[in-house]
């Protein structure tokens, strides 16, 4: 078991947003978290990443308790977070973005850039452009490329296909599928077609609770079925 | 039940102490005590913004000064009638609040603090230099107010009584204000403005009204100061003196009317009496501010309330 979230409760001030949430993630497994808006998916991801602290329960990564750890420390353990809204460091170039990702783990920047190119040829042309000039899909690719620097063990990705055109969504899905074999991922997604294509395990969330865990292959590949459970 | 009574009587007790203090100091120096009282009105005005809207302004002496100069100019160039002067002073404060408010209340936190500093500096410059011909510049103006029979502001006792009555009136007004729906709205804005806005309320309007109330009350205090001293000079608007009211609001406990009064008195006591014994009392002020910022945030009244709440809880449990 790579990651174990055990009965966590999370509060925003006095309001409770996560109730008794538990999930498990195995090595090299792609887990999807689905649910309507406000179900608590991003909150769960942020708690795992260290940006929020659970008021009860524990988060364990590779046997080590990380609940309440600072997000930068969590990242150094090999858990990388990819935020929603495709926020890149706009005033820096694409190369600079990769450089920042490589810096804290002392990875080789040129290697990281090469890896980015292998994920997407488009990046070769954009490597010295300011990141704020990139389109939504290009930003998402950059963010994933950034997160992959240093061979992390677990990626936490929040709504990667949101707001993207169909062609671009396919691109992103392809990248995620290619990455699947090398590390574990927890992906929050609203696009159920994509979820069905790539997930090994699905957790359904509703109003701050996990209401279903789907591991059966047939059920996973049936987006209509998943939708009916939301 | 007994403890509930205790908490009310605690407030009552503190009130008695305060009144007692006033009576005692009265026998020492009426003028000084009148000063204390007026300053408390000023702090009450400031606390509308700080304690109840959560916005700290580093430029509130602008409004104190506006009230002072409004009253002074009225007395000098129109009629030296104290009531008219007060009205003009309050009007000046309200007018400034109306003009500057829409700009200021759009911001919060650091920006709010700074915008008010800018306005304060401009105002200070205007009374010190720009309109020095009318305001008397650095020396200010001295005034003589009319008297009508027993309504004689030159009589220190009458003046004191009037100011004390004003303080009680303002205090009561604030109490009603904070207990009303408007007060609840302000608290809501302080805690989470976005949420209140999403509920459909025009938070900008509420903030503006609160701002104008704050500036008007502060201006009222300014006009009272002028009547008490018999002169007005730029020190009323001095930006450096903002620390006085901020300190008073903090030490008394922001957010409660009683805290404002306690804080105002505390500051006046410190600046008047402590200054006699500790020459480096400004440093003491700075250190006190630091301590408050680090630990003693709720001020005296907050601390008292906490103590009382704890007692009540302990009492309830042992039942």
């Amino acid at each position, binding site marked *: 078991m790579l990651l174990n979230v055990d009965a966590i409760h999370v509060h925003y001030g006095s309001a409770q947003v996560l109730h008794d949430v538990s999930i498990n993630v195995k090595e090299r497994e792609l887990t999807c978290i689905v649910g309507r808006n406000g179900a608590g998916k991003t909150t769960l991801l942020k708690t795992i990443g260290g940006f929020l602290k659970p008021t009860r329960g524990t988060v364990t990564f590779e046997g080590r308790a990380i609940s309440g750890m600072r997000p930068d420390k969590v990242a150094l353990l090999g858990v990388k977070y990819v935020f929603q809204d495709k926020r890149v460091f706009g005033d820096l170039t694409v190369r600079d973005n990769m450089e920042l990702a490589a*810096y*804290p783990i002392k990875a080789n920047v040129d290697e990281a850039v090469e890896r980015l190119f292998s994920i997407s040829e488009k990046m070769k042309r954009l490597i010295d452009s300011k990141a704020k000039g990139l389109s939504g899909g290009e930003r998402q690719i950059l963010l994933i490329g950034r997160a992959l620097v240093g061979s992390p063990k677990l990626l936490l990705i929040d709504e990667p296909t949101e707001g993207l055109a169909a062609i671009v969504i396919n691109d992103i899905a392809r990248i995620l599928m290619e990455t699947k074999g090398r590390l574990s991922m927890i992906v929050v997604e609203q696009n159920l077609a994509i979820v069905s294509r790539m997930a090994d395990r699905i957790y359904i969330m509703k109003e701050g609770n996990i209401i279903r865990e789907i591991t059966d292959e047939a059920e996973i590949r049936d987006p209509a079925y998943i939708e009916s459970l939301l | 039940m007994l403890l509930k009574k205790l908490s009310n009587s605690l407030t009552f007790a503190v009130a008695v102490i305060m009144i007692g203090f006033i009576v005692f100091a009265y026998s020492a120096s009426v003028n000084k005590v009148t000063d204390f009282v007026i300053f408390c009105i000023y702090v009450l005005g400031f606390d509308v913004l700080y304690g109840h809207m959560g916005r700290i302004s580093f430029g509130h002496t602008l409004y104190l000064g506006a009230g002072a100069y409004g009253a002074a100019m009225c007395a000098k160039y129109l009629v030296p009638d104290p009531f008219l002067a007060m009205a003009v002073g309050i009007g000046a404060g309200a007018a400034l609040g109306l003009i500057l408010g829409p700009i200021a209340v759009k911001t919060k936190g650091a920006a709010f603090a*700074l915008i008010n500093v800018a306005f304060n500096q401009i105002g200070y410059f205007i009374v010190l230099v720009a309109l020095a011909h009318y305001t008397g510049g650095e020396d200010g103006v001295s005034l003589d107010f009319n008297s009508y029979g027993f309504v004689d502001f030159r009589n220190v006792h009458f003046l004191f009584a009037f100011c004390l009555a004003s303080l009680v009136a303002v205090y009561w007004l604030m109490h009603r204000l904070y207990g009303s729906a408007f007060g609840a709205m302000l608290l809501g804005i302080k805690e989470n403005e976005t949420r209140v806005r999403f509920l459909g309320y025009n938070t900008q309007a509420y903030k503006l009204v609160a701002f104008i109330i704050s500036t008007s009350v502060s201006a009222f205090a300014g006009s009272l100061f002028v009547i008490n001293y018999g002169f007005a000079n730029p020190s009323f608007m001095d930006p450096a003196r903002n620390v006085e009211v901020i300190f008073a609001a903090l030490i008394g406990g922001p957010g409660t009317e009683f805290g404002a009064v306690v804080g105002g008195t505390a500051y006046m006591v410190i600046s008047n009496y402590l200054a006699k014994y500790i020459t480096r009392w400004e*440093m003491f002020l700075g250190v006190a501010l630091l301590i408050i910022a*680090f630990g003693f945030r709720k001020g005296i009244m907050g601390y008292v309330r906490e103590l009382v709440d704890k007692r009540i809880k302990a009492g309830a449990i042992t039942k």
Partner: protein
Amino acid sequence: MLEVIAYGLTIGGILYIVSIGFSLTFGSMKIVNFAHGLVYAVGAYALYALLPVTNGNFVLAAILAILASLPVSYVIEKFVIRRLYGKSIDYAIIASYAVLLIGVDIIKWIWGASPVPLSDPVGVNARFFTMEIPFYRVIIIALSFVIFIALSVFFKKSIIGKIVIAGLADREAVLSLGIDIDKYFAIVFLLGSALASLGGILYGPISTVHPYMGFRIVTLCFAVVIVGGMGNLRGTAIASYVLGMVMAVTAWYWGAAADAMIFAVMAGVLIFRPIEV
């Protein structure tokens, strides 16, 4: 007229040197650091105290004065800013104000409330076209340009600079890469403070060195930051020189109004471009 421009550039240069640190702290931590003015004053007073020690060697005294001010900024950062940052911005502002108050009083205690004399270390005038201005002012202008270029290079090319730019824009994302952004903000804070003390050292000899100079410079920094944008490096530079010019031109026609005019400009900017922090 040329003199006015030169004076404007001098003031602008000083404003820039001092405001950069203030702007960065504001942009990175959203804190109005009043204590920034204290480091400025400490720089000037340290210079005054060290000149006799270095036998009048201005450059040496200046370097030592900057070094002397570093512990002050370190203490402020570690015990005040860092403690309160993230927990409560309002109280951080009050605390920094309190530090300035205490510092000013200590200065008054040691050196008295009257201004102390510091004079132009060069003392010679330079000739540019038709005007004659003190060579010292030329040095200040040149130095401010050099610092501007150095900072631009630093923020564009060095990794620390890039981290700070990224952190100013998106703090969480920087954390998610495994970078302890607060450590870098602290480094930048110290850099900004060192520049503030440099500003005090440079401006001291051509202005009045008195205990309350810290208050004055901080309020001017406010104006620069509001006009130029918080945490916006290029904006801070432009605003500094523009406001410096405004001050010089205003002083030419109506000496006492120079400071107030800055605030009028600041208020004007706020009316047409209201900020939401």
